[in-house]
């Protein structure tokens, strides 16, 4: 007979694992990926593959040769980073090599330099994205125009994102909210279709990988705040519905702000976190130099996360 195992209680586990969580997040990102491929064609697929492959490769190399620890690429977290990074860049041929640099920054600086999964203070994909945005402003803002279903040509016409249009051409040129919802607009790969993102988010909610607090607080705050501005001056400010559908708010609120590692753990902290993200996004959009502020808003709130973890304690049972 085998030796008896000994351990303290409990002797049973929910069978939940980091690996399962990460693969489920990957699965939740698939609808948005499919929409991106449908709208931007093969380029979208190529950028995604390159980004994911680069992230996985860099993680493996760093773990093997620099940190000299057992590899953890199988847990799927590098793939999540790769996909999110790809979703945050325009689907153009130029991006194929730029995204590799982004992957190096995201994995190397954003994640592994802090000690790997679970220890990074900032969302690695956003670190990579912001680095690229600052280093390659032209390529990062050359948006391909949506070319119908499966445009196989590699030369895609370029155009502006809805928010870019707003900043440069004014309110009149804005696409309709319905187009924004379906994603029939220019923009980063993953952020164009709110619908696809919501499908993924609902899956994550059902699987209890994310809770409603951050997305609702984030989108709600952005909606209310932009609504107030719109009521004050509808000529200058975008209406609230378009505000939350255009740009990266949906992607950011559902997939990036909810990143377990970099968001607060207590529910109250998550509400404050989401509120801060929403507020900062609208502030940056309307008064900042960039047309889009989701990345910066989330990264800034990432800084606040440790403080929120300290302040927002779960309510104790026994007082």
């Amino acid at each position: 007979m085998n030796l008896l195992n000994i351990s303290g209680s409990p002797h049973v586990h929910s069978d939940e694992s980091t690996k399962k969580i990460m693969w489920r997040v990957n699965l939740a990102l698939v609808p948005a990926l499919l929409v991106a491929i449908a709208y931007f064609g093969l380029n979208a697929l190529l950028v995604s593959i390159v980004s994911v492959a680069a992230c996985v490769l860099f993680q493996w190399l760093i773990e093997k040769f620099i940190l000299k620890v057992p590899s953890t690429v199988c847990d799927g977290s590098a793939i999540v980073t790769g996909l999110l990074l790809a979703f945050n860049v325009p689907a153009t041929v130029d991006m194929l090599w730029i995204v590799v640099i982004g992957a190096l920054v995201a994995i190397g600086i954003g994640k592994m330099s802090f000690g790997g999964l679970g220890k990074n203070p900032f969302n690695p994909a956003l670190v990579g994205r912001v680095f690229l945005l600052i280093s390659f402003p032209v390529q990062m803002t050359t948006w391909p125009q949506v070319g119908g279903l499966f445009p196989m040509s590699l030369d895609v016409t370029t155009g502006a994102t809805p928010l870019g249009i707003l900043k440069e051409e004014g309110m009149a040129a804005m696409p309709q909210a319905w187009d924004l919802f379906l994603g029939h607009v220019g923009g980063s790969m993953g952020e164009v279709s709110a619908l696809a993102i919501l499908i993924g988010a609902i899956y994550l909610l059902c699987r209890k990988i994310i809770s409603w607090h951050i997305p609702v607080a984030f989108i709600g705050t952005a909606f209310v705040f932009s609504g107030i501005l719109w009521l004050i001056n509808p000529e200058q400010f975008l209406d609230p519905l378009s505000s939350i559908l255009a740009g990266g708010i949906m992607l950011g609120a559902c997939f990036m702000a909810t990143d377990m590692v970099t968001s607060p753990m207590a529910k109250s902290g998550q509400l404050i976190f989401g509120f801060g993200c929403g507020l900062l996004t609208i502030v940056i959009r309307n008064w900042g130099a960039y047309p889009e502020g989701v990345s910066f808003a989330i990264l800034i709130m990432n800084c606040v996360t440790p403080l929120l973890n300290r302040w927002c304690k779960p309510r104790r049972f026994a007082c």
Partner: protein
Amino acid sequence: MKTFRMGGVHPEENKISNDAAIEVMPVGKQMVVLMNQHLGAPATPIVQKGDKVKVGQLIGEAQTFMCANVHSPVSGTVLKVEPCKDAFGLAKPAVYINVEGDEWMETIDRTPDIKRECTLEPKEIVAKLKEMGIVGLGGATFPAHIKYSIPEGKTAEYLIINAAECEPYLTSDYRVMMEHAEEVCIGVSILRKALGVPNAYIGIESNKPLAIKKMQETAKEFEGIIIEPLKVKYPQGAEKQLINAVTGRRVGSGKLPIDSGCVVSNLGTAFAVYEAIQKNKPLIENILTVTGKELPSQHNYIVRIGTTYNEIIAHSIGQLPETTGKVISGGTMMGKAVVNLDAPTVKGNSSVLVIGEKEAHRNPETACIRCGKCANACPMGLEPYLFSLLVKNNRVEEAKEHNILDCIECGCCFFSCPANKPLTDEIRLGKNKVRAMMAAKK
């Protein structure tokens, strides 16, 4: 449906021995009766080598406050009085008895008649609980006579009987409800009288509809017994959570249930109380579930205390299956893994649970991803991930400030952790360190 206010998990119930009626386990050739089968100091053996003892005879006397009497579960000759290794391998004072026949004390009423009337006064009831060596059978084995002696200045308002049986696998309480509902209700009435409270509440998880129905029917004939169906959620049967579910009250940090006007006892205790008060039978038997997915058959037994694990296994299933990975005394969430199968059972044992090799191993630990699942699952509203860090870095003072001592060690944090961190182990270690620090300060 009533439940406690925060946290909790829902492990697979696995109540596979639900339908196995309670059988009587035959008495072995030799019994080893440990002297500390309860919380507190060991009882003092009052028999010597060569003494003849009868079933139910006092062999270990409670000589300190926090202690309980121990009685002989068999008749025969005392072989020796020396330490015996318990289920975890630690030597404990014990009395070895060679079994000869089955001669019971004359005072014990062995007739099958159910005796309803109890004429004893509350104080007499408590004195008899002490005499009969009754302890809490929910796992903590707290001496019953201490629990039912309400300290000066405090009043009991609620008597709550824990029949939630929220632990996976365990079915002994369920079987007792199904087969001895009336005796249990009499026992509850006696406890209610001892406390002088108007109502007693029996909390049963709603995954036992038959037991709820049976108890409700039986309780109609009794005054002041209310059946409370509870939501199926672990740890519904934890003392503080049960009080919260039934009364809505909360037991404060470092406080006892009586501070909130509640007294909680296990259903098994109520049955033992009936036998002790009405039938003069001391606590010499356990109701044990023998279960496990790997086992060919599932059983519920009445076992004399002092029967070894090996004897129970031999009688019920012959031998442990080849694939056995772990033997647990208790349920999978809070039970204790057994090392020494030659050890005798003690008061408060509720099961012999056999876990297969595959399920017995913990998965390797990975990095914490700060998902906060542990904090969400914690029924006490604590932050297990934080304790893990503090304990690892020996920041004991801070762990205390974050109320590590509130932890009830229910295991919800480890159960829900996707990184497989042994959070419950770490918190237990932290609690020990905090207690050591507090003792050193004194």
